[in-house]
């Protein structure tokens, strides 16, 4: 093959394959995976560590995205807007968990099922609330890294994905350090592993869980900022993410932060390669296919104990 010739194509003409495209698909899959990890990390805390069936997590992210949109209207950078929203979402998360605990968690064995219904209700209320407040039009934000790309040789990578990946890595590292190095962080891990033991040591597991749920919700605010950086948002966008986020968390092994990143990457790279080889219609099947495979072979997830 002469220099400058197009890369070789295999299969038939409708199926595009070249090593150049495969390389690009892997690179892009890594960035997409980081984004998937970022939007799943709040759920990893709420569902993975606290065992709360937080199906409203994607809806909370969408609320975070709209909050980012509002602040962006005042000139905030989207990432800064997401960070600004975190304290507010932290308090809202604490209040939401307290209500959930009083109404459902403390009332017996079928709390899980009723909890799912409760969080579906929360998701619906958030969606309707957003429609009433903002209408159903798509919303986008502007920033220097949205709509532009960085060239690496012939490959051009959208900057918004680089920013999303960077924020995801920082978020993941911060949470991992927090959970392993701080007293409250270790208490959160302890409550996930052995709640009665924590109670015997004089700590209040409900308050610890409330705190942790606040953190999960605050993280969702920042994930929401990433959501609106990556693409336009509308109130019902949560439905797109509910399957993927739960897949990432279960695939990772409940409560594992590094596992969440790894699972996000596996999902992102698999989707990207499947899309290139077999077509975009097969890409969503990857997350659920991987989930079923892992549940069959390793029910505790890739990084679960």
């Amino acid at each position, binding site marked *: 093959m002469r220099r400058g010739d197009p890369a070789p194509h295999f299969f038939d003409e409708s199926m595009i394959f070249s090593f150049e495209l495969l390389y*690009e698909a892997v690179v892009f899959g890594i960035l997409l995976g980081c984004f998937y990890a970022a939007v799943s990390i709040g759920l990893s805390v709420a569902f993975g560590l606290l065992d709360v069936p937080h199906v409203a997590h994607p809806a909370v992210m969408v609320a975070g995205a709209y909050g980012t949109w509002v602040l962006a209207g005042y000139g905030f950078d989207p990432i800064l807007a997401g960070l600004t929203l975190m304290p507010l979402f932290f308090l809202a998360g604490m209040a939401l968990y307290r209500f959930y605990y009083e109404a459902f968690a403390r009332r017996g064995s079928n709390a899980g099922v009723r909890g799912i219904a409760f969080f579906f209700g929360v998701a619906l209320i958030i969606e309707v609330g957003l*429609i009433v407040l903002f209408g159903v039009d798509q919303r986008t934000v502007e920033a220097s890294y949205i709509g532009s790309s960085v060239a690496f040789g012939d490959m051009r990578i959208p900057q918004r994905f680089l920013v999303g990946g960077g924020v995801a890595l920082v978020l993941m590292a911060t949470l991992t350090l927090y959970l392993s190095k701080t007293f409250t962080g270790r208490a959160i891990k302890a409550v996930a592993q052995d709640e009665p033991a924590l109670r015997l040591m004089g700590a209040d597991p409900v308050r610890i869980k409330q705190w942790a749920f606040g953190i999960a919700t605050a993280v969702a605010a920042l994930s929401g900022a990433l959501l609106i950086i990556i*693409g336009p948002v509308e109130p019902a966008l949560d439905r797109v993410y509910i399957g993927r986020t739960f897949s990432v968390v279960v695939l990772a092994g409940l409560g594992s932060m590094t596992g969440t990143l790894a699972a996000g990457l596996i999902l992102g790279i698999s989707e990207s390669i499947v899309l290139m080889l077999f077509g*975009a219609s097969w890409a969503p099947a990857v997350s659920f296919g991987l989930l079923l495979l892992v549940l069959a072979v390793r029910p505790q997830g890739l990084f679960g104990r």
Partner: protein
Amino acid sequence: MKSIIRCCIALAAAAIAGAAAAQPVKIGMSMPQTGPLGAGGKAALVALHMWVEDVNAKGGLLGRQVELIAYDDQTNPALTPSIYTKLLDVDKVDLLIAPYGTVPTAPIMPLVKQRGLLLMGNFSFQVNSTVKHDMWFNNAPWNDASSWFTGYFEAGQKVGAKTIAFLAADQEFAQNLANGAKLLAKKGGLKTVYEQNYPPTTVDFSSMIRAIRSVKPDLVFVASYPNDSVAIVRAANEIGVGPSVQLFGGGMVGLQFTPNMVSLGKLLNGVVNYNSYVPGLKYPGIEDFLSRYAKKAVAEKVDPLGFYLPPFNYAIGQMLEQAVTATKSLDHRKLADYLRKNEMKTIVGPIRYGPDGEWANARVVQAQFRGVVDKDMDQFRRPGTQVVLYPGAYKTGEVIAPFEKARK
């Protein structure tokens, strides 16, 4: 005694007749007010309510006030059959309008055909092609697939295109469009070098744009829904489609909606896409309608310009008004006969229907975005930001190609 009884019966009959006369004419529909078509649906509903206000101010239909009953179908085709059953059996509506869009409309076609009901279509595409209901009247500026894209492919031929790439959403409307476009491409001797259907949950389109760039097509035909259209334009700008591409666009739903146009700004430049109305097209009464609509749109938080759907929804009301007034009846068969045989006078121009219930003379606009700048909504009110390439009677300029050049 007998005369007293007769008098009572007469009074009762008069009271019942009076009550019937006071009953409003109920027009029922579902409308996507949430979900992917929600933005367009809510704007369309504002226009329909404007028509209801206007017709009621003139005394209503057949001397009765008009009431519009509209339920949110969430853009979910699974919900529309039950909504229309409720409208007919519980709400007892007199007339029906279809929801905006092909996907929510398709499942109600068997129901209306079975019951022999008139249905005013609302921007659907080919939902009656297999059902063949003779009381279906679709208000959309297209009829068959060639009516959508003749302009696009004509422009493609002018710039000497030989190859084409297809990118289409994996759902009924977009697939219908893409299949029609593929037939036209084949007829025109274009070679398909890439074909990708993507599911509605697709997060990003960079991979697909990269694949398109790698096969170096002359034309890129996109049939997408609103959420995807914005993401595709962005990805095309970030990744680049390559210097080979002469035309990009075709059937992208959503690039007609003001919030999307404003948010994309100059990224739109060069895109050639279909539209129903752009400023500069002269239809009687449309400018007055749009200025009244603009005021209501702000309060309702819907598309502030409302070029795409609202005028056509107002026109649906105008057509019902014309048919009911002329036939002095709410009988569906009589109304259907009238609609089939007569020209309708509306704010989107005169409309005649063909035997399949689609416009006899299509008027789909293919326009190229030019000179669009960021953060300026008012620029879209002026003729020129969307240069009309087709139909010939309304043409305002020639296509600029290749796409990379047109973007500058």
